[in-house]
């Protein structure tokens, strides 16, 4: 019952940069859960942009603390792509599709969030053996990165709207990028450029798809897409 046990100072002893990285990592996780529970498609895109911005902030802090100039470029790339271009394109698409007020009936948000928590625990367990080899500042964030990937996965599984599935796909990519930042301080620039290009082109293609799907099915609801069965 003595005051101020030494455990308290453990967190305080970490440098400010690490604390900031932890804070951003926690924020990323929170945003993932928020996306899981968000009903309106437009808000989903905004949450995605916020997730991108958090990722950029995290990358900048990591770059600053580890003196890696490559990571600044990567952060700039992420900023342009994930915070500016993709949300803009998605908003444009939603506007063109007149889907601003589209909502989705989500069944049983509490259950989904419990599943989400289980996924987070699983991700943490999975990350444990890997993260012991990582650098000090980003060691513990790998679990969160995997959790973000899993949660995006879950979102893609439970969502029925085409746009929501695509946002889930992009959120998964965010998680992977965060994994790359936290495990290895980012991938080589060539690879990151390639990934970015793929994602951008992918979103454009899917954007075209939205129109075709709506033209053919009169809806962006993927429930209509169940004619091809395994038989």
């Amino acid at each position, binding site marked *: 019952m003595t*005051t101020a046990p030494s455990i308290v100072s453990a967190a305080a002893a970490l440098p400010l940069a690490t604390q900031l990285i932890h804070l951003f990592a926690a*924020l990323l996780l929170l945003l993932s859960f928020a996306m899981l529970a968000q009903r309106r498609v437009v808000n989903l895109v905004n949450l995605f942009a916020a997730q991108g911005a958090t990722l950029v902030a995290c990358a900048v802090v990591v770059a600053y603390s580890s003196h890696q100039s490559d990571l600044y470029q990567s952060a700039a790339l992420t900023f342009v792509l994930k915070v500016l271009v993709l949300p803009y394109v998605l908003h444009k698409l939603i506007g063109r599709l007149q889907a601003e007020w589209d909502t989705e009936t989500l069944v049983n948000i509490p259950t989904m969030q*419990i599943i989400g928590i289980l996924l987070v625990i699983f991700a943490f367990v999975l990350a444990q053996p890997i993260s012991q080899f990582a650098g000090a500042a980003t060691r513990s964030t790998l679990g969160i990165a995997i959790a973000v990937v899993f949660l995006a996965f879950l979102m893609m599984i439970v969502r029925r709207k085409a746009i929501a599935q695509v946002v889930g796909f992009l959120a998964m990519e965010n998680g992977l990028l965060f994994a790359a930042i936290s495990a290895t301080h980012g991938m080589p620039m060539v690879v990151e450029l390639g990934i970015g290009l793929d994602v951008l082109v992918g979103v454009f293609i899917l954007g075209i798809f939205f129109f075709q799907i709506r033209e053919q099915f009169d809806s962006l609801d993927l429930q209509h897409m169940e004619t091809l069965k395994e038989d």
Partner: protein
Amino acid sequence: MNAAGIFTQLFAVATSVMLAPLFSGWVAQCRAWLSNRTAPPIWLPYSRLRKLFHKDAVIARDATPLFRAVPYLLFGVMVAAAAIIPSLSTDLPFAAVADTIALVGLFALARVFIALAGMDIGTAFGSMGSRREMLVGFLAEPALLMVLFTSSLISGSTLLPTIAAALQSSALAIHASLAFAGVAFVMVLLAENARIPVDNPTTHLELTMIHEAMVLEYSARHLALVEWASSLKLFNYACIGFALFLPWGMAGRADGVLWLLPALPPLLLKLAVAGFAIALIETLSAKLRIFRAPEFLATAFLLAVLGLLVHLMLEH
């Protein structure tokens, strides 16, 4: 247990009991300001209590002795809770007998008895209110426990004064886990104290009320005690919040009795800010349908668990 400790303990409890109606009055006043109404005087709860104490109690013919006993029990439980929650000082000798888990148990005890009293007369409203209260309580309790566990893990103790002292003495650090826990705690506070968006403390609309439905049958001194206990509960929750998330400005174990006085202004300041914040949340948010309340509390639980997980993952 020395004389100074006992004095501190008594002084803290007395302060809580006396300040609690003032805090409720302050929240009501802020709400009135924020919704552009003329604010009631801040002393209104006191005069209301005095008025109620002077009235003659009317009790339903079918009431059992339990119905009469519950207001005293409620009030007693809340006073006991106030004794183990640090408000002015972290040196509370009485707190050694009950940790945060016992505290949650105390709140649960109060809830069980008020729910029993609500059903005692056998009116429709009372039963409905009790049922809803139990629903909310059963969802809010795990979330509250998770919040308390997170801070216990950080400070290495389940005694609230020790947690507060530990957090107070540590250097300023960003605890991501505490941020999660803080948000979850605010949500639990709103739900447990019959606030919007879960309940509305001022409503008497039968479809929506929870807390008011249970106490409809009380009058006079019984009602006064129930209301006083409710405001004390809110005050207690606020003090738990301060102990966990804003532990600065409290007197410590080594400080003398005189340090209680300089600890008063920070407490009042924190109360003022917290009251305004509660009023602001209540004004800005809409009341949820009762069926959405589980969703709200599940989110609180989720945040609390996330806080715990983030602590285990990041801050270990």
